[in-house]
């Protein structure tokens, strides 16, 4: 909200240096967003001049030649094009040396052969007003030669940010009240004439026959009738008040309602009484398919969730927001109906949002205006209308409904305030803070505090503690020690596991990245065609590239790799941890993900050859992370990812299923076409871990120690011929199972390892050889060759009987 300090001075004396307010207001809870300086106008060498004579220009019909007294020894000669003046008028005169706004310099010159020693100015030319129709005739005969600066001191405008709870501060009087509380200075409320007589029904001779409220969203509605007004432009003082805060003057009546809105915070609406059909005002919900053309000349479709002020025929105003062109006050208006009302804030907010129409009026109604302030604001406006636009107000007014809020009493003790604040408070500090805010206080610990109706949000003792702290301040709270007992809570498992993954990946040379969670439909569809992207779509996205939540961290990481490759940055290993979203059998799920990606080679040439990253390199990196995270591989086998975007066929694999195992991982090369589309050159190796947070919610049990043999092992190697498409791991694990079963209770078998793979020459087409090494140990002795050979023979027999594998001879 813009506040002109000149205007504010009408209600309260401001400090000598008004910049002080920029520091004071924030400490009361009103942020000063920026201090908007007025124009950089310069009124040096512009003085009051009196026109002594006005003669026609000998060479130009439209110009006149004037002799002007400017307080120098001799009057000066000035050629002028304006016509709205006569000898004896006093006007601003820019003398040689003056620099008008816009950079125009005044010099002695000749106009059509006649010398001119200055320029008589309009208000607009000096930026002291908006009037550009002729010279600015100065009122009240100011002394000739006086610098104009003295009459038009520069105003300062502050932009205030009023918090959502302080609707009362959306007004000059509200802000003045706060300043008054701070400086403990009285502020003055404009005096108004006596209110007329209140009626529930329209009296005889009124402009209206009936006023009625349907529905719950208007609690109080008042109308006043004024007859015989003359609509005209507003006087300068009123125009300049409105212009100082960026409002455009319209006409005297409309300007007055706007002025009073800003002054009191109570929006008013003036109807042309002649345009109200059927002499009826109804406050009702809009009908289906009803529409209205608002004052901004936009036709708006209404619906029954919106409240309107209607006459017998049609809506005239979207209640609390904006009027229609149909009941506009214009130059033909002579009789007015003035409305002052209280609407339910939520209702006005809802409609303003729905229509995308936010006005000074809707802003105030939706922040809860003072339901007891209707009459004051209306009478203030009426006084101004009668003064400026003439006419007279009918002595009776109609006000229906009941105020939804009145003064209320809160009881509070010193002990309660101290319990919240944590420091000692003197009883009079409490009561004086509340009194300064205009609350009336009776009693003494407990106090009964009466909250005026304009403070909608002060309802509970805790609110009074806040008001106390606002006025008292918290300066004394310095250098206090932190006092609190120890806790026995651990960090959340999801947080810890991501920290461990981060540390491990950084140790493996990966750089952490941070990507947007919002992605495009196109990306989601191409990277995750396996589920319907629509499930992850937002209802109200802001931009077309941020329409869905991410299903994976990988596309972002590929973007990052491509970006850095393009910029020749040496960044080829990157990772991210974060939340991802998938659709599943029972609805969408949010999971934790850890993903990393890497080019096979650096982006720049290297002085030395080195081995490129391959599938087994990235698999090792993955196993290392998983180990560091304290997680075991999910049960099950590595499955080739074939035809499953975003992975490259035959070079990627997956283990686990997050829906079933709460953990899954995919490792391999990302689909070459997808990464190419993101402009990454070269294959990208990646791994993605998905974790259902529920997996991490349990505390892990302590590991219990298993004994191991201290005797040397006996080693036996063998090679098995198997079908080429048999996974090596199944051969290994089958052999391990057989070896363990043969070892029985006699001896232990170390994990069986694969030490060679062979296919090709000397082998049958479609077969391969898997060579494994077995190590046997007994817990209590060195194994004899005989028993090892016996065991080995049994193993060979079992392979022959139980598996499709053949011993390679």
């Amino acid at each position, binding site marked *: 909200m813009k506040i002109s300090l000149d205007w504010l001075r009408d209600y309260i004396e401001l400090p000598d240096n008004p910049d002080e307010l920029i520091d004071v207001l924030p400490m*009361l809870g009103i942020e000063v967003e920026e201090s908007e300086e007025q124009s950089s106008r310069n009124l040096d060498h512009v003085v009051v001049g009196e026109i002594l004579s006005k003669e026609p220009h000998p060479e130009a019909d439209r110009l006149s030649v004037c002799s002007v007294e400017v307080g120098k020894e001799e009057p000066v000669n000035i050629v002028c094009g304006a016509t709205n003046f006569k000898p004896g008028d006093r006007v601003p005169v820019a003398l040689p040396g003056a620099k008008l706004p816009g950079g125009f310099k005044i010099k002695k010159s000749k106009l059509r052969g006649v010398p001119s020693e200055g320029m008589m100015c309009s208000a607009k030319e000096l930026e002291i007003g908006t009037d550009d129709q002729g010279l600015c005739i100065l009122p009240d005969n100011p002394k000739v030669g006086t610098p104009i600066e003295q009459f038009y001191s520069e105003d300062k405008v502050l932009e205030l940010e009023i918090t959502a709870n302080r609707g009362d501060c959306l007004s000059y009087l509200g802000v003045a009240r706060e300043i008054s509380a701070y400086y403990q200075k009285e502020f003055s409320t404009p005096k108004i004439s006596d209110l007329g007589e209140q009626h529930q029904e329209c009296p005889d001779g009124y402009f209206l026959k009936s006023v009625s409220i349907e529905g719950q969203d208007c609690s109080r509605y008042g109308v006043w009738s004024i007859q015989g007004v003359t609509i005209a432009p507003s006087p300068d003082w009123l125009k300049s008040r409105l212009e100082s805060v960026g409002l455009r003057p319209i006409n005297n009546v409309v300007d007055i309602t706007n002025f009073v809105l800003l002054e009191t915070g109570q929006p008013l609406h003036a109807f042309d009484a002649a345009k109200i059909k059927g002499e009826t005002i109804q406050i009702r919900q809009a009908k289906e398919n009803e529409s209205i053309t608002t004052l901004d000349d936009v036709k708006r479709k209404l619906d029954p969730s919106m409240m309107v002020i209607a006459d017998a025929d049609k809506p005239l105003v979207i209640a609390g927001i904006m009027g229609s062109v149909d009941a506009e006050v214009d130059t033909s208006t002579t009789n007015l109906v003035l409305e002052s009302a209280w609407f339910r804030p939520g209702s006005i907010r809802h409609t303003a949002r729905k229509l995308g129409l936010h006005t000074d009026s809707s802003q105030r109604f939706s922040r809860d205006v003072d339901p007891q302030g209707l009459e004051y604001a209306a009478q203030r406006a009426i006084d101004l209308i009668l003064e400026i636009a003439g006419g007279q107000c009918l002595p009776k007014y109609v006000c229906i409904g009941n105020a939804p809020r009145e003064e209320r009493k809160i009881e509070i003790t010193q002990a309660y305030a101290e*319990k919240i*604040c944590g420091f000692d408070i003197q009883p009079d500090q409490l009561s004086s803070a509340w009194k300064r805010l205009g609350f009336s206080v009776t009693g003494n610990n407990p106090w009964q505090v009466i909250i005026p109706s304009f403070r909608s949000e002060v309802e509970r003792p805790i609110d009074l503690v806040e008001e106390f702290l606002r006025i008292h301040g918290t300066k004394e709270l310095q250098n206090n020690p932190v006092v609190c007992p120890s806790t026995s809570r651990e960090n*959340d498992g999801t947080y810890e596991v991501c920290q461990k993954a981060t540390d491990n990946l950084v140790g493996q040379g990966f750089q952490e990245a*941070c990507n947007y969670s919002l992605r495009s439909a196109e990306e989601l569809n191409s990277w995750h065609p396996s589920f319907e992207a629509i499930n992850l779509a*937002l209802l109200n996205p802001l931009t077309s590239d*941020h329409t869905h*939540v991410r299903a994976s961290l990988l596309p972002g990481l590929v973007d990052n790799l491509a970006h850095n490759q393009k910029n020749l940055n040496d960044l080829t290993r990157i990772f991210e941890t974060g939340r991802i979203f998938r659709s*599943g059998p029972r609805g969408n799920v*949010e999971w934790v993900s850890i993903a990393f990606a890497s080019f096979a080679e650096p982006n720049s040439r290297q002085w030395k050859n080195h081995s490129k990253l391959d599938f087994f390199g990235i698999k090792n990196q993955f196993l290392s992370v998983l180990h560091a995270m304290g997680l075991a591989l999910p049960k099950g086998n590595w499955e080739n990812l074939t035809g499953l975007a975003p992975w490259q066929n035959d070079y990627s694999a997956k283990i686990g299923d997050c829906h079933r195992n709460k953990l899954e991982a995919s490792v391999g090369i990302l689909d070459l076409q997808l990464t190419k589309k993101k402009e990454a050159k070269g294959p990208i190796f990646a791994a993605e871990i998905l974790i259902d947070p529920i997996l991490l919610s349990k505390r892990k049990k302590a590991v219990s120690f298993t004994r191991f043999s201290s005797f040397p092992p006996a080693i036996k190697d063998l090679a098995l011929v198997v079908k080429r498409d048999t996974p090596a791991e199944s051969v290994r694990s089958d052999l391990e199972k057989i070896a363990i079963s043969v070892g029985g209770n006699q001896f232990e078998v170390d994990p069986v390892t694969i030490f060679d793979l062979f296919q090709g020459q000397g082998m049958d087409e479609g077969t391969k050889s898997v060579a494994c090494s077995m190590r046997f140990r007994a817990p209590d002795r060195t194994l004899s060759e005989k028993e090892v050979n016996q065991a080995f023979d049994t193993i060979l027999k079992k392979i022959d009987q139980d598996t499709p594998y053949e011993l390679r001879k």
Partner: protein
Amino acid sequence: MENDLQAIVTQTAAILTSVSSRADWEQAKATILGPNGNLTQVAKSIGKLAKEDRPAFGQALNRAKKSVESLFQASLESIEVQADLASLGEKADPSLPPVPSHLGGTHPLTNVRRKVVSIFRKIGFTVAEATEVETEWFCFDALNTPEDHPARDEQDTLFFPKNSKWANIAQKAKEAHVLRTHTSSVQIRTLFKEKPPLRVIAPGRCFRRDTVDATHSANFHQTEGLYVDKNVTVKDLKAVLDYFLKELFGDKLETRLRPSFFPFTEPSFEVDLKAPNLGKLSNKWIEIMGCGMVDPEVLKLVNLDPEEWTGFAFGLGIERVAMILHGIDDIRHFYQNDQRFLSQFSNAT
């Protein structure tokens, strides 16, 4: 004969000077000590000697054999040393860079988050997490911000369609799912799950329907803090935040609580700080975080008695802290992931 033996020892020494590999060595050994080797041949001639000469020859033969064997042993050791050295490859020029070179590092937002978490950890705050997808009730209503509350307008929220189903995000009733606009919703999830006394810090990602520019981002990060216990006061709030901010920005720091408004705290404050070491922002009041005493209504909503329990909560923007600490002027840098940006902070603390 003895001369022959001496000649063989000399010959062995001569041969071994030109032996440089294990194969050469084996061959040389065969030439001298093999079944047809020179020394073996001489040894065989013992039968031709007179009986009385045999012992002397035997001794000489043994001496010669020992000499030859020790020559071979020394030669073998030297060959192995050479082979070991050869296996080390080229001598290293330590000035050359490693290939490949991957330093790795953390993101500046992680650095700040970790620093915040570690400071609070020292005074007993542990990390709580909740989901980024929330429901309207947990994000707003439970935080004392009902549908028609003006504060609800100010946070432009990203919604999911009314019928969208989320298996692991519990609703209160049938309210819509949203992307959380603040981490304050973690307060509610935590207070439902755990009982006070409670001290948690909740770093996490938040979302607003904001146009991306130098100071706005479609998603951003906050850290929420919550302390609920008996007799928690405004004084405790200020003490904890003073401690935190001094740990983060240095000792020469001034702070102040400026009255403000959040629907879920009462009284509410913005925290301003003034420090001499913040570059362009030095020595002026800058807003750093919001805080306040947990509103009694919020406590009631999570079934705690506000007569028994009090608490405070605060919220801090991670990006904002990182920008102030490092003098970063555009929030978009955090999400572009350019190595020239990231590497400046990848080992920052």
